[in-house]
C-alpha cells in the first residue's frame, strides 16, 4: 500500500499531498459520529479511573493543621524528662551503676545522652507548632539542659565537691525553667466552647502544612495521569503543533505523527520517574487514625482542601451498611440513627415492644451531613463503604484488566499466527490443529475452570485473570494473522524482501506484519470488550477479583437482594457502557479499514 502511493507521487507531478492509508482511515473514522461519541465516552471513563485518587480519597490535598494532642503530650513529658536528667546528673557513675534498673546496660554517660535526646525530642515537637518568636525561651531551656548534662558528666571525678554543688544548682534552675514553660506554653483547649467576647486562655498553635494525597501518589500513577492529560488535550496541542510548527505542511505532519506519540510517552515517563524518585509514594501514615483525630478535635485544621468525594475506597461506616443513595427518600435517617421511611424502619417486637437500639452514624471530618443529598450519591455497600468511590476505584481494575489482557492476547496471537502463516508446512499444520482444538472448548468455561483452581495467595486474581484471558483467547487473533500472512507471503514486497536476503525475523516483523495489522486492530478493540465482560462475569460468579479490592463485576456480587438495587444497577451500567463503546470502536475500525464495506 505504502510503496505504490509514494511512487505515484514522485514520478510525474510535483510532490503534492497524497493521502496515505492511515490518512484515509482517519478520514473515514472522522465521518462516523457514533465512533467519535464512543471515543469521548471511553476517554472520560479512563480519566475517571486514572484520576480516581484525585476525585475520591480520604486524604486531603492540602492540610494545615496543629496536632494539639501531640503538642500536649510533648509538653507533659517534658517535665518528668527534665527531672530525670537532673536525677541522673546528680549521681556519680558508680552510684548510677548501683542504682540502675535491672537489665539496663547503659553507662552513666549513655544514660545522660539518652535523656538529653528525649528532652530534645519533645522540644522539637513543640517548636513545630510554635511561632518562631516563641522559640527563644525553649532554646534557653535547651542550653541549660545541655550545660547540666555536661556538668553531670564531670561530677564523677569529685563526689560531694564543687562540681556537685554546681550540678545541684543547675538542676534546680532547669526545674524552674520547665515549670515556667509548662505554664507559659500551655495551648488552648481546642474542644472547648468559645464564649463571646472572651479570649480563650493559652497559646494558639500554628498549623503544619502537608500534602497527604499527593504524597500517596506513586510514580506509576503519575505516569498515567500525565499521559492521560496529554491524550485529553491532544486535539489542542496537535492543532497548535501542526499549524505553528509545521505550518500545515501535510508531508511534515505525516512524518511528525510518530514523533508526537513518542514525545507524549517520553514526557509522561519523565514525569513518572521524577515524581517517583522525589515526592511520590513516600508518605505512610494511618489515614483513618488521622481522620479520627481530626474529627474528634485533637488535631485542629486551619486550612484543609479535600477531594470532591472525601471517602477512601476501603473506608467503611458501620452504621450505614447498605444505605440507599442519599438523594432518595428512603435513605433518610433520624438523629437517633433510625431509618425514617421505607422497609428499613425499625419495627418494635410484636410481643415485647422492644426496638433494637440504633447505631448512631459517625460523621467524619469533611464529610457531608447525615441527610445531605450528596452524602452517598450511589449508596453504600455491605461494609458501609461509599459506592461511588468503590465504582471509581473499581474502574481502575476493570478497565486495566480489559486493556492489558487484550494487548497480551494480541501479542501472543500475532506472534503465533505470523509464525504459522509465514513458514507454512508442518509448523502451520501443528499450530492450526492446536488452535482448532482450543477453539472447540468454550473459552469462558476454560477461563472459569482454571481461575477457580488458582489460589489467590499464590497469584493475585487480577494477574491470574489477565494471564488466563490472554493464554486462552489468542486463537482468534492468531487465525486472523495467519490468514493475512498466507495472503501477503506471496505479494511482491514480501518476495522482494526475501530476494534481498533479509532474515525471516526482519521480513516478518518489518515488512509483512505492518501490512497485516489492520484486522488485528479491529480484533483488539473487540478483545478489550470481551476481556472486561469476562472479568466482570468471573467476579460476578465469585471467582474473580476478591474483596476488598473493588472491580465492577465484584461490586455487583456484593448483594443479590433486590432491595439493594443500587448495588446491582450502577456497576452494570458502567460495564455496559464500556462494552458498547469498545464494540462501537471495533465496528467503526472495521468499516474504516475495509474498503469493500465502505460502499455499502
Amino acid at each position, binding site marked *: 500500500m505504502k510503496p505504490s502511493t509514494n511512487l505515484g507521487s514522485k514520478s510525474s507531478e510535483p510532490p503534492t499531498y497524497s493521502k496515505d492509508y492511515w490518512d484515509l482511515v482517519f478520514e473515514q473514522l472522522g465521518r462516523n459520529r457514533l465512533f467519535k461519541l464512543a471515543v469521548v465516552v471511553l476517554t472520560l471513563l479512563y480519566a475517571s479511573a486514572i484520576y480516581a485518587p484525585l476525585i475520591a480519597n480520604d486524604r486531603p490535598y492540602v492540610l494545615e493543621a496543629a496536632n494539639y494532642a501531640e503538642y500536649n503530650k510533648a509538653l507533659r513529658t517534658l517535665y518528668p524528662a527534665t527531672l530525670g536528667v537532673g536525677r541522673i546528673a546528680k549521681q556519680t557513675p558508680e552510684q548510677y551503676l548501683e542504682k540502675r534498673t535491672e537489665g539496663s546496660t547503659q553507662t552513666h554517660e549513655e544514660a545522660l545522652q539518652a535523656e538529653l535526646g528525649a528532652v530534645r525530642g519533645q522540644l522539637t515537637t513543640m517548636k513545630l507548632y510554635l511561632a518562631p518568636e516563641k522559640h527563644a525561651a525553649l532554646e534557653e531551656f535547651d542550653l541549660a539542659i545541655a550545660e547540666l548534662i555536661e556538668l553531670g558528666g564531670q561530677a564523677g571525678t569529685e563526689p560531694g565537691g564543687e562540681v556537685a554543688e554546681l550540678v545541684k544548682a543547675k538542676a534546680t534552675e532547669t526545674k524552674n525553667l520547665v515549670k515556667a514553660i509548662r505554664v507559659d506554653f500551655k495551648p488552648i483547649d481546642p474542644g472547648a466552647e468559645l464564649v463571646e467576647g472572651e479570649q480563650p486562655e493559652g497559646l494558639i498553635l500554628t498549623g503544619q502544612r502537608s500534602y497527604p494525597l499527593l504524597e500517596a501518589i506513586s510514580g506509576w500513577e503519575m505516569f498515567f495521569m500525565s499521559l492521560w492529560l496529554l491524550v485529553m488535550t491532544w486535539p489542542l496541542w496537535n492543532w497548535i503543533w501542526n499549524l505553528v510548527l509545521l505550518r500545515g505542511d501535510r508531508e511534515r505532519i505525516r512524518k511528525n505523527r510518530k514523533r508526537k506519540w513518542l514525545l507524549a510517552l517520553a514526557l509522561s515517563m519523565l514525569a513518572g520517574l521524577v515524581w517517583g524518585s522525589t515526592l511520590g509514594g513516600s508518605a505512610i501514615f494511618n489515614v483513618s487514625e488521622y481522620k479520627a483525630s481530626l474529627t474528634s478535635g485533637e488535631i485542629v485544621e486551619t486550612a484543609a482542601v479535600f477531594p470532591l468525594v472525601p471517602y477512601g475506597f476501603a473506608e467503611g461506616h458501620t452504621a450505614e451498611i447498605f444505605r440507599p443513595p442519599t438523594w432518595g427518600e428512603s435513605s433518610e435517617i433520624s438523629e437517633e440513627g433510625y431509618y425514617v421511611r421505607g422497609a428499613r424502619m425499625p419495627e418494635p417486637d410484636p410481643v415485647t415492644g422492644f426496638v433494637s437500639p440504633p447505631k448512631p452514624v459517625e460523621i467524619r471530618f469533611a464529610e457531608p451531613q447525615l441527610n445531605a443529598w450528596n452524602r452517598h450519591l450511589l449508596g453504600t455497600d455491605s461494609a458501609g463503604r461509599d459506592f461511588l468511590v468503590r465504582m471509581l476505584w473499581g474502574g481502575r481494575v476493570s478497565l486495566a484488566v480489559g486493556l492489558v489482557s487484550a494487548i497480551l492476547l494480541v501479542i501472543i496471537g500475532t506472534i503465533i499466527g505470523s509464525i504459522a502463516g509465514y513458514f507454512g508446512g508442518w509448523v502451520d499444520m501443528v499450530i492450526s490443529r492446536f488452535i482448532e482444538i482450543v477453539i472447540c472448548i468454550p473459552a469462558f468455561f476454560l477461563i472459569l475452570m482454571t481461575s477457580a*483452581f488458582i489460589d489467590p495467595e499464590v497469584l493475585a486474581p487480577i494477574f491470574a485473570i489477565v494471564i488466563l484471558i490472554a493464554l486462552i483467547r489468542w486463537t482468534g487473533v492468531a487465525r486472523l494473522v495467519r490468514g493475512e500472512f498466507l495472503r501477503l507471503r506471496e505479494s511482491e514486497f514480501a518476495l522482494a524482501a526475501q530476494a534481498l536476503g533479509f532474515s525471516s525475523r526482519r521480513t516478518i516483523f518489518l515488512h509483512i506484519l505492518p501490512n497485516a495489522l489492520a484486522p488485528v486492530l479491529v480484533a483488539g478493540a473487540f478483545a478489550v470488550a470481551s476481556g472486561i465482560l469476562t472479568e466482570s462475569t468471573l467476579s460476578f460468579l465469585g471467582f474473580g477479583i476478591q474483596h476488598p479490592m473493588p472491580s465492577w463485576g465484584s461490586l455487583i456480587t456484593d448483594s443479590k437482594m*433486590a432491595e439493594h438495587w443500587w448495588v446491582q444497577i450502577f456497576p452494570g451500567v458502567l460495564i455496559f457502557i464500556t462494552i458498547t463503546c469498545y464494540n462501537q470502536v471495533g465496528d467503526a475500525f472495521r468499516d474504516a479499514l475495509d474498503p469493500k464495506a465502505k460502499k455499502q
Partner: protein
Amino acid sequence: MVPTLMGIILIILGLLHAAPGDPAMQMMGLGGGTGEVSQEGVDIEAKIAKFKRDNALDRNFLVQYLGHLGPFNVKPDGHELFGGDGRNPWGGFLSFSFGSELFNRNKMIGAEIWKRLKSTTLPLAIISIFLTYLLALPIGIYSANRQGTTIDKVTTLGLFILYSIPVFWAALMLKLIFGKTGLSLLPVMNLHSQDSDQLGTMAYFLDTAKHMILPVAVMTYGGLAYLSRQMRTGMIEVIHQDYIRTAKAKGLGSKAIVFKHALRNSVIPVITIFASILPIMIGGSLIIEVVFDLPGTGEYMFKGLMERDYNIIMATMTLSGTMTLVGILLSDIAYALVDPRITYS
C-alpha cells in the same frame, strides 16, 4: 473428529492437573476437619490413599488420560489390562460413560447430565434457538430492505446496544424489574412453583411457561442481536449483486426478489453461526442457570467447580467441546446443502 476430541480431553485434563488443589485433600476437607482431627482407628493417610486408588488418581497422567478418554476403565474395578479385576472393564468418554461423581460414588454423572438436559437445558435451548432464528431473520431482512432509512438506523443501533448488554446483568435487571420487589409479574427462581405437583396438566404447563419467560428472554437476546446483524449484512451484500439487479430489471416484484432470489443466498453465513450457538445453548447457559437457580447442565458444571469434583468438570467440559464439534459438523453439512457450489471431498 476423534483426534480433536482427544486433544480437547488432553487440554482439559492437563489444565486440571497443572492447577493447584488436590481432590483427595478436598475430600478430607469435606469430611470434616483439615486433616488434624483424626478419628480413632482411622488413619487419614490411609483414607487419602484409598480415595486416590479408588479414583485412579494415583496412576500416572497417561493412564488417567486413557481412563477419561476410554474405552478402558483404569480404576481398581476396571479392565484387566490396567490392573483391574475386570468387574467393570469399560469406561471413559469413548464408551459413553462418565463414571460417578468424585465425592458421591452412587451418583452417575451420565444419568445426572441426561436428567438435567431433559428437564431444563434442552427445552430452554430449543425454545431460544427457535425464537432467535424466528425473530432474527425477519428483522435482518426488514432492516436490510430499508437500508438507510430511520427505521433501519434505529433497529441497527438498538440491536447493537442489545448485543453489548452483559448476560448476567441482563438477568439481574430482569429479575429486578419483574420480580417481587419490582412489578411482581413473573416468578424469578426455578422452573416450577413449589406446589406444581398438585396442579393439573394445563395449570402445570402454564406455570412452567411463566417460569421460562425470563430465562428464555435472557438466552435469546444476545443471539438475536448478533444474528440479526449478520442477516442484515448478508442481505445487503446480496442485494448489491448483479443477479438481483437483473431480477429487478426484468420487472419482478420486490417480494419475489427478496424471498426467491436474495434470501436463499443471504442465509448462508447465518447457518454457520449455528455452530457457535449450539454449544453455548448446551453449556453456556451456566450464568443464566446460576442466576435463575435452574437445575441444568451449566449449573451442574458450576457445582462441580465449587466442589472441585474433577469428574463433573471433565464430563461437562468434554460434552460442551463435543457439542462445538457437532455444531461445526452440522453447519458444514447445512452449508453444502444450501450452497451447491461447496463440495467436501
